[in-house]
């Protein structure tokens, strides 16, 4: 199995639905964006326009985060994804430095909340922020909990432009394999030699 994602940048219009869908699905704390969309201004007036670059963990085959992890908490899984075993993470943050995609985030607070002025977590936060214990690093899992229920990653499901395609590149009949063949999408920063599993159609 070779799980991967193709992002068609042409179809992204920066609604940021993916970023917030990820935040809700994975209940990530403030400041954390396992996926996000960068807006780039191109050209000069009057021939200017915006281009968008959605970013996410690349689940690299040669993942530098896995290589530098001193405890083995970051692992390359059989399905091809890179996952972190939170209980094994000591929060050294070497992986964050090693990742060329800025995909990893450090959980600083014990009880993070979006309602900082009120100073208390809401009950969604109380119920769901337990998955991100303070002093650990985490990142996109390609929505492992959702996949276990047969659902696609939240960012894929919510994308109104259908810019994201997720699936198994080992399955020649999968939509992603067909798209890969048709569009020959390119990874971000191939020169880093990380063999990413996220590919872009420009």
């Amino acid at each position, binding site marked *: 199995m070779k799980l991967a994602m193709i992002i068609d940048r042409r179809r992204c219009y920066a609604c*940021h639905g993916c970023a917030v*869908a990820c935040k*809700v*699905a994975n209940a990530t704390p403030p400041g954390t964006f396992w996926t996000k969309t960068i807006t780039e201004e191109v050209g000069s007036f009057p021939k200017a326009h915006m281009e968008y670059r959605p970013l996410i963990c690349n689940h690299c085959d040669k993942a530098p985060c896995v290589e530098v992890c001193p405890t083995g908490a970051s692992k390359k899984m059989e399905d091809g994804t890179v996952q972190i075993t939170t209980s094994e993470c000591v929060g050294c943050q070497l992986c964050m430095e090693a990742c060329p995609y800025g995909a990893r985030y450090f959980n600083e607070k014990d009880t993070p909340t979006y309602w900082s002025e009120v100073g208390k977590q809401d009950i969604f936060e109380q119920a769901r922020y337990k998955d991100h214990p303070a002093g650990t690093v985490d990142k996109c899992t390609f929505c492992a909990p959702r996949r276990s229920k047969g659902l696609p990653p939240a960012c894929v499901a919510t994308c109104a432009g259908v810019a994201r395609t997720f699936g198994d590149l080992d399955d020649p009949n999968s939509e992603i394999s067909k798209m890969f063949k048709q569009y020959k999408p390119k990874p971000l920063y191939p020169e880093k030699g990380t063999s990413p599993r996220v590919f872009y159609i420009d």
Partner: protein
Amino acid sequence: MKTVQVSRRSVLKAAGIAGAAAVMGINLGSTNSALAAADAKKGIMSKDNWHYGHCRMCMRGTCPNMYRVENGVAVEVMGNPKTPTSKGALCAKGQSIIQNLYNPYRVKAPMKRTNPKKGLQEDPQWVEISWDEALNTTAGVLKEIREKDPRRFMYSVGFGDMDFFCTFLFYFAGAYGTPNYVKSNGTLCVLHYASDLVQGVFPGVKPDATYAKYILAMGMNLGMGIASSDGGVRGLLNRIYNEKDIKIVCVDPHCGPDASKMEWVPVKPGGELAFLMGVANSIIFEVKKMDVDFLKWKTNAPYLIASDGYYARGKDGKPQIYDLKDKKVKSFDDKTLSDPDIYAENIKVNGEKTKAGFVLVKEGLKKNTPEWAAKISGIPASKIREVARDFIENASIGESIEMVNGKGEKLLMPKRTSVCEGKRGIKNMRDGVPADLMTKLLNMLVGSLDVPGGMLGTQRGPFLKPDEDGVVAPKGEARFKKPVYPPQHVNLSEYFPHKHTLPTLAFRVAADPHKYGLNYEIDALLSVGSNPIASTTEPYMVADSVAKIPFSATVAYHYDEMAHMADILLPSHALLEKESVNSYEGAFDVYTKETISTRVMMYRDPMPPLYNTKQPQDIIIELCERIGMIDDFNANINKTGVILGEVTFAKLDPKDYLQPGKRYTIAEIWDKGVKAYFNRPLDDMKKEGIIVQQMAPADAYNSSFFKKGETRHPIYFERLKRSGDELRKFFTEYKDKIYLPDFDMEDQLQYYEPVIKWRPKDLTEVKKGNKYDMISINWKAPTSPMRIAGNDQLPYLNEVSETFDPTYGKICLNTKTAAEKGIKEGDTIWVESANGKVSGQVHVTELIFPDVVGFAGALGRLVDSLGKKASSYPMYNKLTNAKISTCCAVAIGVSNSVPVRIYKA
């Protein structure tokens, strides 16, 4: 500091939060809320699992969603993947609906004000009260006023507590008997007049991107700018990147996401109408190719016009047409009419020389050459000519397509594939309606109204019908309502028959009604989901007016400006707690292959309430009962029908009528409506979430219901002239009595003309050296396109926007302009107009026309009771005004661009 008093026991315990939040006071005296909350909690525990719902995080509410409850907590949300339109998509707003629920700045229990002083800077000193006290106090005041004079009650509604447009709200005003039903939403909706006049449709029209090959989009987005996820954008992207057979040109002072995918043609704000006239001129005088058959048979272009500007009428009183075939003048519906002449001139009718309407249209546009338009719009003449040429070349004039209608008949229908649409960027100006009419005119030149590939109404089916002159009969805002003096409405509706809404004026009049000719005062205000202070214009004037009204109650979701000014707060559920229905019948942005024939009825299965709040409709119904007007309310619904969506009315069979003397819940009323319209009970929707219906392909196009010559679209706007002449008579007759500041009759009524003419306006006079040497613009931010659902206070949306949208909460300047003014990225500046000033941080960009000051989104607050973040953003509405002399002269919508100047703070 402003304090918000709530019961610790009732609110915090129900929320499972230990301890009081910093901004909240404590009142242990009340137990009612606690009991209600305990009941609610029992309910919560029974609601674990996924539930169907629909979004309403923007004013559309058309994306079905699902939410999951675990141990009584809403823990997940996603789009409903079974929906054929949105296909499970949700934008960032839709994904933030759980924060709408757990927003700590909500009103959590009924409250009464204890500080008699009202003002944005006054602490209301809220004290929690029981529902009985809140409802009885409000109903008591309203009952007394109703018995005395129902006009003295003002009922202000808005998007906030609507789950779709209007919902149940107008039933209450009708039943109460007040004319003063004032919408605070719609200040920028100058879209209804022209679509009603030309296509007989409400609320507007959208391009059919199923077949369109060329879309000229004026001052608008096609769904990307508002982050639409209802399927239109998906289809449009398919056309652009898969089928690669569509060209889209966005004419706008600012390059948003839509223009970034397509072609951006930057325009100087205020010059859009000139550009459109230049395009029309080039088509008529240079390209010289049009859909002449459409003009002859589907418009009033051949109607002969007398020297007074009205239709020349025959002895039978009907408009006349010159038939080229036998050289005779005939009534428009003469069965022998064979070849209507759109170029007829010097044709005698009743002994007087006449011309075809189209000749006058053509003469009117003669001087508006591309070179002339270039000077005003800033768009080069060569580009104007290119647009004109492309518009014609892509129009498929002469082509047709076979489709099957609902009766199973095969129809050969014209296919026209070039369309022009304008939205608020061109409509919310002094000449907004003329600009909108000019977009219709371009479409008529290529025959692209109500046909495959053309501009289609939101309403589907045979909604359109001819008037006695054979021309489209308007049904809504283009109908002329006879003006009356003295006025009865606090919003002076009697003077402005084509107005959508101008709440700011209503509050100005409410502050001093006798001066404006009203013979009564406003004694009470009930506000339901409305915010005329923050959401319209002249916010401080509106706030002062609200403060003067002796009693005001607000059905309130959160502590916004209107809540802040109220005497009684009637707390309303958050979105996920509201049971709701909505029907998607027509596109908001574009029709596409997957949405053109689809109707989706959706339902929201509510979460039990977290706090001591109620369903807003049920609050209104309870007030009806306590006021003693439940029979009137029920009768009003029986008469109007049960509204299930923006354009979905379910007329009830008399056997299902609401009975007098009985108080129904809104769910019971919807159940009757859904049964009548969809033949299904509401309970079915709890299980299935949505009902999907498909119409026959031809039935999606209104023209399929009419043969040629049966209904003609007006290209010569005789009705508009008629309105102007009637208004001139009225204002002349009452000129000594009518008090209307900033109103110049001749200046106003010159826009009521059958052929659009160009007139300079304040924006086109802006130049270097003037006090106000720049022009402000505002566009929809994808995460806060309008003030609804607490978008601007929800941390998910503010965080993602501030981090990844460089324009969010900023003031945008062109690079060259910024350099000229010595301003850098991140500088704090003041933007000042004749109406007010705002400050904010600068974002320097190439994506905006020089000498223009751009603001994204509906942001900025005047109170800090929604959190400091929400009040930290610049509030664009402070810069604009509601002067009649600057509003759109016909639809009386606020001019949303104004002359401004900037300087460093």
